[in-house]
C-alpha cells in the first residue's frame, strides 16, 4: 500500500489522475474502520488533511462554499445560522472526537444511505463540486447519489466542496437511533422551507438504497401551501395536511430489514419524523423568526 500525502489541491488532483484507485482519506471515520478490520486493502491512500484549500469555507453572494475538509465541529460552531439543517445533523454525528475529525466531504464520498449530511443537503438543494486535473464541475445533489455507496464522481475526480445557498427559511432534521451519541441512523429525515420560491424540499436517510428526496410529498405540500395562501398568512397547518405529508414521505422510501431496524419501523418512523419536522419548521415560520 502507498501513502500519498498531498499538501496542495493540484498535487492531490495529479495524484488522483495518476492513481484513480487511491482512496481519499480525510477524518478516517469510515476508511480507517475498514482498514482496521481488514475489510479493505486499497493500493493507495490519498491523505487530503494537509490540503489547505479543502479546509476552508467562504460566502459567494448568498451561497456557502463549504470545503470538503471542513469538520462537523466547525459546521456546528461556524455555520449554524447559514446552514441550520446541516448544523443540526452535524450535532447528531458520533461523538465530540468523531465530529472533530469527520467531514461533510468524506460523508459525501462514502455516500452511505445512512450518512447524516445527506438529508439536509438534499433538503437545501446543494450542489457538489467535483474537480480533476482537466477541470471543475458541479453536480446537483439530486443527481449525485447513483447507488448503494456510490456517487457521480469519476475515479479521477475529488469532491472539493459543497455549494449550499444560505437558508431562506426554517430547516429541520430528525434521526432515529438507540441513543443520542454514536448512532448510525435507523432512519433520518431533513426538511427545508424555501419561502422565497414557495417550495418545500426534503431528504430521506437510511430508508432506501441511496439518500433521496420525497419528491411527490414535496409537490403535494408545496401545492397545498400555495393554494391556501399559507406562505403569506403563515396560519397554522391543518392536522390532516401534516398527516398526509407524513404518509407521502413514507411512500417515497424503499427501506430494508437489517441489524439496525426493520423496514416497517423505518417507514413508520419516517412518517412520524416528517410530521414532526414540518410542525417544528412551520412553527418557526409562523413565529416570523425566519
Amino acid at each position, binding site marked *: *500500500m502507498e501513502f500519498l500525502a498531498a499538501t496542495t489541491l493540484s498535487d492531490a488532483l495529479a495524484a488522483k489522475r495518476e492513481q484513480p484507485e487511491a482512496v481519499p482519506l480525510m477524518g478516517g471515520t469510515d476508511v480507517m474502520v475498514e482498514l482496521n478490520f481488514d475489510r479493505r486493502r486499497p493500493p493507495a491512500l490519498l491523505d487530503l488533511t494537509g490540503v489547505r484549500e479543502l479546509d476552508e469555507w467562504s460566502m459567494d453572494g448568498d451561497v456557502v462554499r463549504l470545503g470538503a475538509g471542513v469538520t462537523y*465541529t466547525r459546521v456546528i460552531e461556524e455555520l449554524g445560522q447559514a446552514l441550520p439543517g446541516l448544523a443540526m445533523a452535524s450535532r447528531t454525528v*458520533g461523538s465530540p*472526537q468523531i465530529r472533530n475529525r469527520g467531514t461533510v466531504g468524506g460523508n459525501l464520498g462514502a455516500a452511505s444511505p445512512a450518512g447524516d449530511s445527506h438529508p439536509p443537503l438534499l433538503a437545501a438543494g446543494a450542489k457538489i463540486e467535483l474537480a480533476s486535473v482537466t477541470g471543475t464541475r458541479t453536480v446537483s445533489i439530486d443527481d449525485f447519489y447513483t447507488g448503494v455507496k456510490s456517487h457521480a464522481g469519476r475515479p479521477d475526480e475529488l469532491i472539493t466542496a459543497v455549494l449550499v445557498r444560505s437558508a431562506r427559511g426554517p430547516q429541520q432534521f430528525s434521526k432515529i437511533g438507540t441513543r443520542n451519541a454514536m448512532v448510525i441512523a435507523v432512519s433520518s429525515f431533513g426538511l427545508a422551507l424555501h419561502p422565497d420560491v414557495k417550495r418545500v424540499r426534503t431528504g430521506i436517510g437510511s430508508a432506501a438504497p441511496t439518500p433521496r428526496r420525497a419528491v411527490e410529498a414535496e409537490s403535494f405540500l408545496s401545492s397545498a401551501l400555495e393554494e391556501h395562501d399559507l406562505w403569506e398568512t403563515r396560519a397554522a397547518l391543518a392536522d390532516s395536511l401534516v398527516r398526509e405529508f407524513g404518509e407521502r414521505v413514507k411512500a417515497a422510501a424503499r427501506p430494508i430489514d437489517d441489524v439496525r431496524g426493520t423496514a416497517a419501523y423505518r417507514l413508520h418512523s419516517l412518517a412520524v419524523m416528517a410530521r414532526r419536522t414540518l410542525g417544528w419548521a412551520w412553527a418557526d415560520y409562523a413565529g416570523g423568526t425566519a
Partner: protein
Amino acid sequence: MRVTTTVNGERYDVDDVWEGESLLYMLRERMGLPGSKNACEQGECGSCTVYLDGLPVCACLVAAGQAGGRQVTTVEGLGSAEDLHPVQQAFIAAGAVQCGFCTPGLIVQTHDLLRRDPHPDDAEIREALAGNLCRCTGYEKILDAVRLAAETMSAAPVDDPSGAAS
C-alpha cells in the same frame, strides 16, 4: 515508511510504519506509549482519545501518516506517576477507576472539556463524554471525578500541555 511527528513535546522519527496502520498502533506498538488503549478500533469507545494539533480525536481513526508533521499529546503527556494532573488525581479520589481501560481516554476528553469550559454543568459533562464508553462504573463516579477536577482546577490552575493554540 518513515513518519516524523511530535508526541508529548518530543520529536520522533518512526521507521517501518505500515501505510495503512493507525496512529494508535504506531503509538502503542512502535513508540512505547501504551497509555492510549486499543478497544474497539472503530471510534466507538473513546479509549484511544489523544490530542491531535490540540483537538481530541480517536487515535484508531487517524492514519499514522496523517500524524506526520503534527503535534500529538497522549495521556502520558498530561501527567506522570510522580506528578499526576488534577484530572488524574480527581479520577482516583472519586473512585472513577475500576478496570481502568477506558480511563486514559476519559482523562484526555475531560482535560479538553475543562480547558474549554472550566465549569460545565452535568448535561455538558455527559455530552462531552458521550463518545467514551465505560463498562464498569455506571458513569456516576466519573461524573463525580469531572466535577471534582473542575473544582480543584479552578482553585489552582495548571499549565496546559496539550499543544492547543488556545
